[in-house]
């Protein structure tokens, strides 16, 4: 492509607009609070507890997605079957459905009016207003992201590698553990990162299912409602700073893995 082309220049301008549109609000928000505000907030036990709860619950949701989502992702990548499109449509649902509706739907099946809710109550599992509930909601919204990334990773691996492995005497399980999984590892990690990012960012569904114990986004919302923009910003900065550092570290980790292998 000739760099001086008019088409190329137009594209660059559009690209710059998008990047500024996304980056400007976030950069401004990070720069807005004074250092003193930031220090003050981090010694607030409530804030620390809410951020830790967010991180912990999101990690749980990502790990659950990994555990139960991996086989589904593999099946979708390798098998053709009737109703595959329907299954893929169902997996897309949590992305499409408005967040408060997700919360309402989950309360619907776990409430005492529904058989599942009754079973859970008898087992002593509480969803509404509990950490369990937060993890369930986070898993619900995060799992499609994991499944999509993992599916793409599996699709990129030639089925012939698995076929050769089996013809050499390896069982399907051995093949998956020694050939497929090590090769898809990078995509799987990306999926886990995307899933935990989505879990941390969730607010609408959680505010309905579990206002308390407060996760960080709910706490930010509460501060905004009660004290205004200025008092919600420092908490927001801490939350996204921690998220960014974590994700950046994971990205670097996966990038290095690629180089050494």
């Amino acid at each position, binding site marked *: 492509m000739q760099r001086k082309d008019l088409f190329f220049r137009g594209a660059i301008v559009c690209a710059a607009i998008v990047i500024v549109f996304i980056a400007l609000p976030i950069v401004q928000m990070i720069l807005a609070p004074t250092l003193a505000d930031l220090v003050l907030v981090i010694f607030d036990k409530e804030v620390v507890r809410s951020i830790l709860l967010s991180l912990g619950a999101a990690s749980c949701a990502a790990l659950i997605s990994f555990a139960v989502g991996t086989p589904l992702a593999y099946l979708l990548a390798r098998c053709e079957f009737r109703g595959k499109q329907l299954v893929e449509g169902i997996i897309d649902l949590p992305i499409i459905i408005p967040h408060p509706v997700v919360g309402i739907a989950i309360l619907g099946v776990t409430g005492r009016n529904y058989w599942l809710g009754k079973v859970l109550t008898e087992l002593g599992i509480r969803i509404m207003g509990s950490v369990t509930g937060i993890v369930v909601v986070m898993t619900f919204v995060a799992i499609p992201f994991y499944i999509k990334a993992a599916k793409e990773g599996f699709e990129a691996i*030639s089925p*012939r*590698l698995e*076929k*050769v*492995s*089996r*013809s*050499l*005497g*390896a*069982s399907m399980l051995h093949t998956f553990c020694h*050939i497929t999984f*090590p*090769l898809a590892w990078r995509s799987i990690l990306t999926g886990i990162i995307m899933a935990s990012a989505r879990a941390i960012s969730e607010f609408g569904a959680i505010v309905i299912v579990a206002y308390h114990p407060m996760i960080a986004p709910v706490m930010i919302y509460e501060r905004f409602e009660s004290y205004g923009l200025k008092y919600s910003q420092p908490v927001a900065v801490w939350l996204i700073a921690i998220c960014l550092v974590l994700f950046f570290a994971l990205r670097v980790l996966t990038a290095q893995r690629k180089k050494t*292998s």
Partner: protein
Amino acid sequence: MISIQNLQIDLGDFHLRNIDLEILENEFFIIMGPSGSGKTVLLETIAGLVLPTSGEIRIDGQDIVPLSPEKRGISIVYQDYALFPHKNVVENIQYGLRFKKSTTVQKQQESLQTLISLLDLAGLEKRYPETLSGGEQQRVALARALIVEPKILLLDEPLSALDPRLREEFIVRLKQLHQNTTTTILMVTHDFSEAIALGIKGAVIADGKIAQTGKLDDIFKRPKSVMVANFVGMKNLFKATVKNRVARIDSVQIQLEREYPESELYVAIRPENIALSTERPIGVTNCFCGHIEQVTAQGFYYDINIKVGNIDFYVLVSYGDFHVMKLLRGQDVFISFKISDIHVVGC
């Protein structure tokens, strides 16, 4: 040893029907056919990686269709080699060993060393597949397939991804290997010249069926159908009306060996069986005068198109003969062929 009976495979757009094959122990059997005729799918079915719709595959009498691939003792080497990219050369080769519980560690080490020297892989042990050349990758794939001492080795177009020089080297290696082991080898290819360079017996697949099976020499010399004749490179293939031992192709009349009941037939002559001369040869029944229409150099020989009336004959002439005869485009020449070199193929 391998006996395939009435096999039917349906996989997406591929349909193979009525596949019957008998392959003997330690044979080097070639399955030929144009690209996209489902040859690879047939190999994968034999290896258990694709399930047939119906039919039987028996090895030493036992039907192996219900067996899962890891229990069949059949190795497969793909066209793209399919080496495990996260394992180095030795790890790739040794992969299958851990599933063979019967042999001792010492024996396994020995067979690893034997294969490394046999396939000229010394020095590459710690390298990863992406750093290897195509020929090296292929030798690793072959070593990986052979270390488990398979009863049957399946080769999926092993030569097509190699450049011509490596191809000849690999043909020699493969023949030696076959002579030194008891493994039965089944290879697919879309190139007849590869087939004849390697195997003794084979089958031609076309349109989802077996078109001809038997000795390669027979398939080469006596193709049973127009499709097979085309596939084995019979360029001089003409539709003729036959009457009283004379085949008439447009204005050209060719004497045949015997009479045929049909009146419409195909007549085929191999390019290398047609003699070319600048003067009329004496005592030859089928001799025609034509002019040189086109000359194409083909590496070590010339491919010459000679027009006799409206018919194009293709003749192969060696580099040396061509220059001795001082042939030129447009020149008048004589072509002749023996009656016994004319192949008559039913429509």
